[in-house]
């Protein structure tokens, strides 16, 4: 398999992952709709949570990890040429596809029980865990290949190191967790440390996306090395925490919360300032207007999420406000990376027009409204993940904030759906022509 084919397939997996997440979101709605739920061929009561797990795993974990696979294959192709062959690349893709099947089937076949634990929600069935292992292994192969490449320390290598450390954390958690734990505690602790480290991977991917799309360096080489270096240095000691702290204890739990707070702040600040400097300099003129606008949207959404993260406390809606904005900023960078870098590289024509521009504005502004509404509501004490009376919307301010959240969410979903439909359609039709 050539490297160009490899990054084309990783791109396809990541966009299809979003499409699958979208289909499951629809099935979730159907499974709660009277009469319609009776037509569904599986038990709708147990499907709701399983469908939710599948929706989250594809829209968050698979989408991010497959995009990482596309980044690595693309950057390898930049060095070795698009037509260079890689045998293990095809095998890695095969593992990832098999892994995705393992992640879908338990929801459709009503296998195991759903656990909505943080970062990597699960279905407690061997097929689902096997799916996770295969997906992780596919990307591990690519990470190792990235590590042994003859090049200096760069963003791609840093991402590979971070990813490998995340897998080490998962493995150590698995080996240190005692037998006989309840399923929620087991899964929460299993994915806690590694899940936090994966957020460093996602941050590194954001910086890489900005770099690739900007073409001209956003930061000079010493700053790039230092920024990615800080990400790696903060994460390097994490496996040791499994040796010195009780994996079930509070110190271990709080360490990872603090790790995000202290470890991501400085790199995010440096890269964001670099991007702002780039966007106000003459260098920006080599980018089209829309790309510049998307950069601003991504920058604002991501940093708004970071700011919300510094101000959150407890279990109100400020917590989802923080991560929705951060993920929104990263997603915007991935969307423009696909349209401006990867799709042209695999000779998929990108048809621009009103809808094309609209997807970015809808998604970006929608996410900002959605997250800001949640943040305002959370500041007034509205609890997260509740509905109806449990939200205690007893003031006009709370109702307006949650209204902003709801309207923003719908607008963002419209932008996301446009992205998936348009991108997938172009990729599939280009494939047929090819």
């Amino acid at each position, binding site marked *: 398999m050539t490297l160009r084919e490899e990054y084309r397939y990783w791109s396809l997996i990541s966009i299809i992952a979003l499409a699958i997440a979208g289909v499951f979101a629809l099935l979730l709605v159907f499974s709660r709709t009277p009469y319609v739920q009776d037509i569904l061929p599986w038990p709708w009561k147990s499907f709701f949570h399983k469908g939710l797990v599948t929706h989250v795993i594809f829209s968050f974990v698979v989408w991010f990890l497959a995009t990482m696979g596309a980044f690595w294959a693309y950057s390898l192709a930049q060095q070795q040429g698009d037509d260079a062959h890689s045998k293990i690349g095809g095998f890695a893709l095969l593992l990832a596809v098999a892994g995705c099947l393992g992640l879908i089937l338990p929801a459709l076949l009503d296998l195991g029980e759903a656990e909505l634990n943080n970062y990597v929600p699960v279905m407690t069935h061997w097929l689902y865990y096997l799916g996770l292992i295969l997906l992780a292994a596919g990307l591990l192969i690519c990470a190792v290949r990235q590590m042994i490449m003859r090049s200096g320390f760069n963003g791609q290598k840093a991402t590979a190191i971070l990813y490998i450390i995340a897998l080490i954390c998962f493995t150590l958690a698995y080996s240190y967790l005692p037998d006989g734990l309840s399923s929620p505690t087991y899964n929460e602790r299993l994915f806690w440390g590694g899940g936090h480290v994966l957020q460093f991977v996602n941050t590194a991917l954001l910086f890489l996306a900005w770099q690739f799309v900007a073409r001209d360096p956003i930061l000079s080489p010493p700053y790039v090395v230092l920024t990615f270096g800080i990400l790696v240095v*903060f994460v390097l000691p994490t496996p040791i925490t499994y040796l010195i702290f009780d994996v079930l204890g509070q110190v271990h739990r*709080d360490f990872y919360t603090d790790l995000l707070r202290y470890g991501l702040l400085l790199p995010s600040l440096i890269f964001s300032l670099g991007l702002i400097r780039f966007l106000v300099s003459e260098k920006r003129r080599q980018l089209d207007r829309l790309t510049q606008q998307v950069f601003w949207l991504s920058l604002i959404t991501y940093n708004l999420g970071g700011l919300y993260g510094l101000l959150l406390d407890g279990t109100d809606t400020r917590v989802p406000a923080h991560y929705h904005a951060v993920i929104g900023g990263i997603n915007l960078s991935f969307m423009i990376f696909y349209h401006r870098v990867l799709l042209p590289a695999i000779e998929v024509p990108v048809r621009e027009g009103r809808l094309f521009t609209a997807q970015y504005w809808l998604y970006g502004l929608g996410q900002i409204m959605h997250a800001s509404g949640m943040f305002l509501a959370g500041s007034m004490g509205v609890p997260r993940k509740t509905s109806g009376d449990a939200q205690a919307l007893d003031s006009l301010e709370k109702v307006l904030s949650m209204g902003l959240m709801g309207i923003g969410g719908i607008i963002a979903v419209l932008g996301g759906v446009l992205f998936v439909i348009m991108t997938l359609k172009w990729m599939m039709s280009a494939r047929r022509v090819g």
Partner: protein
Amino acid sequence: MKRSDYIFLPLICAIALFLGWKLFAATEKDLSGVIIQPIDDIGAFIAAAEQIQPKEGEVYLLAQQWKWSSEITLQAGRDYILHLATADIQHGFHLPREAMGQSVDILLQPNKKYQVNLRNLKPGVYPIGCTEYCGIEHNKMRTKLIVLE
């Protein structure tokens, strides 16, 4: 390298070192004011949590999937001792910082009881949530601390 880089690069390194030290120092932070003891008889704790008129100045709160034993109503300006425990699996007790000037977050482990001093309570209604994922209905695990004038 530009001349300004000789200022900015060491400055970034110094800030990174400072943040790294803060992270390391955070692992040393003790749960100040929290006394943790093994629990011999969870039945006795449950009975104390169910008492309508508990001992003066002592409050009991029991966590279990997926509820807290009760709401808590206290008087502002008085000191209390809050006793916490879990009847089943791990839960997280969280009181927002508005209640006492600093937030309280305690991971409740099975077979242990926790004792926290509640001082300088400000009048208001404060949500108490579970900050540790404890199962599919985890989000429903909510109660309130009501502090009266």
